[in-house]
């Protein structure tokens, strides 16, 4: 009983949505089920948010290491939640956008979240350098191809690409670094991306079928074996 009902639900819902693509009257079923998903996800927030608070309160109560920082999380969370739910400082009425300019929700977003996320995002510039230092090594044939392709594209992005290969005559202009870089992006890169995507398309079909038919159930009740 514990496994039969969930597996039946998955089977019926999955099959219905696949068939709905081919039956016009059911076409907006897709939008309805996506909306159902969003509603369930909001309920899950109680579990998620509750867990976040509980973890940090425990850390605080039992004075685990770095308990001080849990205060920062709890204060930040409660502040933003109150300011957001009660729309404090929001110029409009209850129906106005939660992040309407002027509201404290909007101010906190722009003072705290925007600088933090754009700075985290910019860490990529550093990690791209350290990753290429470590990864682009001519260890074997595949790694050498990886190295050469990356090097040509990088060189093509600087003026030195043209300076180094400017001497190549026009009838062989494909071998000029900037043109070669564009060519690599337009053919081997395109071919590789396509092969991967064709594989993904098939992988999703096989995975979806396994889930719908209940062959893959490790997330629902584990295998009988």
């Amino acid at each position, binding site marked *: 009983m514990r496994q039969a009902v969930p597996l039946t639900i998955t089977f019926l819902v999955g099959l219905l949505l696949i068939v709905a693509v081919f039956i016009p009257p059911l076409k907006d079923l897709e939008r309805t089920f*996506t909306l159902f998903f969003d509603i369930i996800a909001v309920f899950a927030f109680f579990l998620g948010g509750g867990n976040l608070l509980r973890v940090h309160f425990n850390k605080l109560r039992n004075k685990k290491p770095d308990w001080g920082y849990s205060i920062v999380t709890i204060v930040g969370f409660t502040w933003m939640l109150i300011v957001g739910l009660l729309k404090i400082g929001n110029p409009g009425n209850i129906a106005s956008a939660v992040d309407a300019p002027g509201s404290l929700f909007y101010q906190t977003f722009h003072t705290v979240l925007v600088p933090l996320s754009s700075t985290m995002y910019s860490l*990529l510039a550093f990690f791209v350098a350290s990753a290429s230092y470590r990864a682009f090594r001519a260890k074997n044939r595949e790694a050498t191809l990886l190295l050469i392709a990356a090097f040509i594209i990088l060189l093509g992005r600087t003026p030195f690409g043209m300076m180094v290969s400017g001497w190549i005559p026009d009838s062989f202009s494909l071998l000029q670094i900037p043109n070669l870089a564009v060519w690599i992006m337009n053919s081997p890169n395109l071919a590789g991306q396509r092969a991967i995507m064709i594989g993904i398309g098939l992988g999703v079909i096989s995975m979806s079928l396994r889930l719908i038919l209940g062959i893959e159930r490790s997330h629902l009740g584990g295998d009988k074996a």
Partner: protein
Amino acid sequence: MTRPSDSFGCPSAVRIALLVIAAVIGISITAAAQTEAAPADSVIADTTAVRVAPPTSVVAEDHKYDAGGEVDLSWVPSISESLQNSPVLGYRIYRSVNGNPEILLDELLPGEAEYEDKDVVKDSVYSYRVATIATDRSEYLSITTQPLQPQVENIDFNKSYLFLIALVISGAVIYFVETAKRGKKLFVRRIAGLEAIDDAVGRATEMGRPVLFIPGINDMDDVQTLAALTILGRVAHTIADFDSKIFMPVSRSLVMTAARETIKNAYQTAGRPDAYSDDMVSYVTDEQFGYVAAVDGVMVRERPATVFLLGAFFAESLILAETGNSVGAIQIAGTARPAQLPFFIAACDFTLIGEELFAASAYLSGEPRQLGSLKGQDVGKFIAMVVILVGVLSVTLAEAYQIGLFEGIFNWLSRIFSSN
């Protein structure tokens, strides 16, 4: 590569089939036209000298294969447009619903010849008139179209090829799943990343450091997150056997709930239900980079021996992989977002590329039925290879040697594998 105008070469079955189809279409158009050509008694020709001609053969048709929500209007633009400096400023579309007086629906630029009216309801009747607007803003109305009730078609035949392909591939997957049941040993090529799981988890036990599992940053509405959770089921089973510690910060509350359920079941089937605790999985935040900042903090402080990065990743993939590498962890990554694969290939020890992420749980289960589905996927690849071969050959021969037959095959294949 503009395609030269095709002259039909030798007659053949394909081309006869095309002719038949063309005939059928032709008949249905003329049939539709019949309704329009009914004697138009209501319109009195405009009395002043007709300087600007109204649009002609105005046809309103129900949009095929929809839930009765659209009417397609088409007409032949006014002949005055072809004059030297054409006096036509544009077109106006009038519509009357259930016989009520006409209202202006829309105004179009000159040269337009069709219009899709999307806000129609299937149980009322619509009739349309199109007017040419002259430069002096005077209007010249066409004949009214026959009253039309949008129909509901229950089967969308435009998608019949899509249905066919889906049937063939799913059939192959299901066929090999069923035939594999009789326990015939199935060969599956080695996937390095998956073979490395056992000793990666073993390493965590030896070093007494936790295993970190990151299921991507998308919610349960992404099929890659589901793939990550099915792999989690297998990995958690191994972790329970090796008595290692697992820690799983997640970016979505739903994923937290599902992950706890998966790990709990894995520990039960491994015979160690007591070792499981809900604190193995904890929700952090839905914000992409807030989650990355927290996970980086966990990596640097807990110094995990093994890191799994499986699921849907976006720009933050390299931040996680590089930080994981800096703490000396063995990293097994996998995603079906081609844009992030280069970063995992560069920064991680093993990477599951696209399809391998979806095949992982079947591969790890070793169950004949699950492995059968992999063979079904290979059938899909075989079909893709054959179709590409035929498609390329036919377009090459059609293009290089002007052979009509191959032109027909190429167009036919392109229509089957089109994205409508």
